[in-house]
């Protein structure tokens, strides 16, 4: 098969293409609003709807509910989060066993973090061990969590175990719950802006195989130094 010649796309021509793309400020405002709502920036979303004169796609209170759950998880109050999720819509956890497991696991982590070893053991045996039978994935997660007890706060603790105690783990759980709630409201579970970035990464990578093009440097929205020539 003949090797395709890589075409060169000059910046001038490319800028013209960019200019030709049809997009309005209103379009972009919607994109931003979607981000604010999905990511739960309630007051910002409210202000934005006033300043930009836009309808909000959702009830702002629903953002608040979601954020309360997220905050509860971020401060380690898993019980509160579970209650709130069930208040919002009991089906979310009923129909999503792995999400429920994730929350239980988080609860176990919080026990261990607080040094409540007895409670942790009891909780693990009563609530989590039976679920571990359900799938190998649950089991290995359970084992990983229990390793926290074995190492306690020893410096020997492997990173794969210690990271369970990191804030990132809480955020991860919170994000999963957030996505599940959004999905239950049939909203996208991820901000469109993120999808746009995914598409750009895909597109630039695909295009790079076929042509040299000016690539975008998003830190300042120019082609900056990355565009050499």
């Amino acid at each position, binding site marked *: 098969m*003949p090797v395709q010649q890589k*075409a060169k796309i000059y910046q001038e021509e490319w800028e013209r293409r960019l200019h030709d793309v049809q997009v309005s400020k209103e379009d972009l405002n919607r994109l931003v609003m979607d981000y604010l709502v999905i990511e739960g*920036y309630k007051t*910002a979303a409210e202000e934005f709807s006033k300043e930009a004169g836009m309808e909000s796609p959702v009830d702002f209170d629903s953002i608040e509910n979601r954020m309360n759950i997220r905050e509860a998880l971020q401060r380690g109050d898993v019980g509160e989060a579970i209650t709130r999720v069930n208040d919002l819509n009991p089906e979310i956890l009923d129909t999503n066993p792995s999400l429920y497991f994730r929350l239980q696991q988080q609860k176990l982590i919080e026990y261990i973090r607080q040094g409540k070893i007895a409670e942790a053991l009891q909780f693990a045996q009563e609530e989590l061990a039976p679920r571990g039978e359900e799938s190998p994935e649950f089991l290995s997660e359970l084992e990983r969590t229990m390793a926290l007890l074995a190492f306690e706060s020893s410096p020997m603790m492997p990173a794969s175990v210690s990271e369970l105690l990191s804030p990132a783990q809480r955020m991860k759980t919170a*994000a999963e719950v957030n996505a599940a709630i959004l999905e239950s409201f049939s909203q996208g579970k991820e901000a469109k802006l*993120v999808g*746009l970035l995914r*598409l750009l990464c895909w597109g630039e990578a695909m295009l790079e195989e076929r042509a040299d093009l000016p690539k975008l*440097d998003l*830190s300042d929205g120019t082609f900056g130094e990355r565009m050499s020539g």
Partner: protein
Amino acid sequence: MSTRPSRSASIPIPPSSTARSLENVIPMSFSPNPPARQRPASTVNAAASFSPVRVAPPMARSVSASYSSALNAPPRGRPAGLAQLNTAPVFEPRIIRATTSPTPSRDPACNAPYSPSTSPVRPRRLSAGVRSQSAVSATNLGHRASTSTIHATHTTTQGFPRPAYLEYSSMRDMLHTEPAPSTLTPVTRPAPYAVSSQDSRSSVSPAPPSIPYPYFRRELSPVGDSDDESIATPPPPQPAIGAVTVLSTNTVLMLPTRWSEQDRMPSLSVSLDGRELTFTGPSCMGDRESSAARANHPIPPACGIYYYEVEILHKCPKGPISIGFSAPDVRLSRLPGWERNSWGYHADDGWAFPGHKEGSAYGPTFDTGDVIGCGIDFSQNRVFYTKNGSFLGLVFENVGKNTEIYPCIGMRQTNESIRANFGSAPFRFAIEEHVRARRDTVWGDIMATRVDWSVLGLGPRKTEEKRESETPKLAEKGDINEDDESKTPLRKLVLAYLAHHGYARTARAFQKQCTERSHAAAGKEPVQTKIEPEDDVAMAVDSEDTRAAGGSSSAADSVGTGAWLDYESEYGLDRDLNTRLSITNAIIRGDMDTAMSLIREHHPSVLEREQGLILFRLRCRKFVELVLEAGEALRKVKEVEREAAAHPKEPSVGSKPLDGVGEGIVGEMDGVGAMDVDDPSPEARTVSSATSPMVPTTAGTVLPGSSSAAPTPSRDAHAALAAAAKAALHTALSYGQTLEADYKSDMRPGVRAHLRRTFGVVAYDDPIATGGEVGETAGQASRDALAAEVNQAILESQGRPAHPALETLYRQTSACVTRLGLLGVGAAAFADVRKEFLED
């Protein structure tokens, strides 16, 4: 658009289309070599390039909007307008040709298609329907007759609506089943495997091939683009305002619509409608001989998936009819599938042949009466067949990867015949569902792409060293939602957008929430002593890093703490944003004095940018505002006068002086004729102005309701109003004289043109209601545009980008996808940027 006479909507296709399509079809089909096909394209380009273009970029949008809504069948019934224009660039060149072109076959009545159609959906189909009805004008009837005659003798195919399954392609607006109106030169060779058609066109064009379109410069409207001497490249020979649009070409990708009259073996005859092929010669003997035919156009990969069906009308017992695809250079004396770059499914044994004689068993045999569907999926470069509506599975690899392909049929026996459906009739197979499912899959795959922030220039640019120091787990974390490495750049992107457009309260609320969250995420870490001090270090490092390197921060940022602290200083939200906002708001209200004095105070360098262009524009706008005020004051005089006339109690006392004043003013103002004051424009708002303070106040307080109720005060009011109107007019005119005097030596063509347009406003009593160029110059949209320009200028003077990164992100993504589609990457056809991200 809705006010257009219905006639224009009812005949979107010029009756001359047949003649015109012959013009295009014949040379194309007779000479399959690319240069010949491209010649018309370059001619058009040249012609367009040398024609003066009147329309300026900001106005171009509306023009192209209406134009494309008439031309391109908009997808899925969306209302016409900007929404459907994501792939349609600006169209001016064609418009110019439409008016100046000496195309012989055109009839005055044929102008209809160039008017905006009132039908937002599928003008083609609509036209077909209307033609068969009786309510067509005489000229059209005549054309209809000649159309069908030509149709019969030359066997051209009328176009048909774009098949519905193609609506799933993000590039659907480029896909056409017939040549668009004659000024369009169809790009039948998209040359997807080299450069895009536009490129090849502009390279053969005798006109200057590329005029820079400075996207990253401020988008100045007329004035800016035309005379900006700071543009490094030499100025183009033609008026530069049009330069931008001249080079913007719309890509037209033709779909196969019939069997080619030329690209076939003589022993295969093509039916009048182009769909049937019949083997008329003596049956072929031996493997060496066969007869094949190709369709009239190659399949654009921008379809994503292309599909056609073939009904076997008559098949001889031994006849190995072959259905498939072939490249344009494959010999037609061989069945598709037996030669390199051809692919075929054979009736006699059900085998599939991938370009050589070693085929493999694929599906059932087929015979007279069967309907065989044949599809190419460019997202995986594989082919699929269907038999009588049932899917037979994917077959072949790398189909159409390095060559254009055409639908192709081969037969060997006398009297064998087939009938193809290229989409003009319903398909047996549920192709729409198939395409939708495939689209969803492809889109899902694309959306699983990891965002590589370092490649995008956001987030930490990791060196190998740093990457090692990270824990492996952290490095492979996939989900963006939980990944703080991604949160910071996203927040920055959004915050910069809000700041750019001056959404100050939103920006502040957003910033506050972000900061809170970062603290919540990082600060609330109990007991685990290790982490907190590290974070502090990270924060410190981060702040410095961010300031120095403009956003790229250390790997320690993965906890997502620090970069925030700098937002305030980086965007200078409070101080800077407020000023910028006051300035733009003043311009939007028409309060140019406030705007100018604020700019002078806070951003003096802006006024000097580009040899004082911004100042010039502001001053011109101020003049327009003064004229509008004077017009408004005069209208009030007239109004009072009219009310006085309507009340006979107060017959003549006030009318004389009033009339006198009124006429005097009229005379002074335009010297043309009397004013029509019946239509007070809603746009003509009372404008606060420092230069003529008495106009709004006196007029505003005295007038309402007082004139008819109290005759004597009203007469006073008349006098006061009249005096105010006169004063306003004098203020306006003397400002205009100063303006003219100040800029009379500035010979930049853009300045001249803008000045001329500005003074043109004076000639109308109600410029905004006048519409057209005058209305645009005077109206609110022009204030908004000026405000946006000044906003950009201020940002640029501070070394910030002229466009928010978010906007450039969208444009870059969209442009990438379109380009990929034109380069033959089928998956791009299933990435509909606008639909996925901008529509609900």
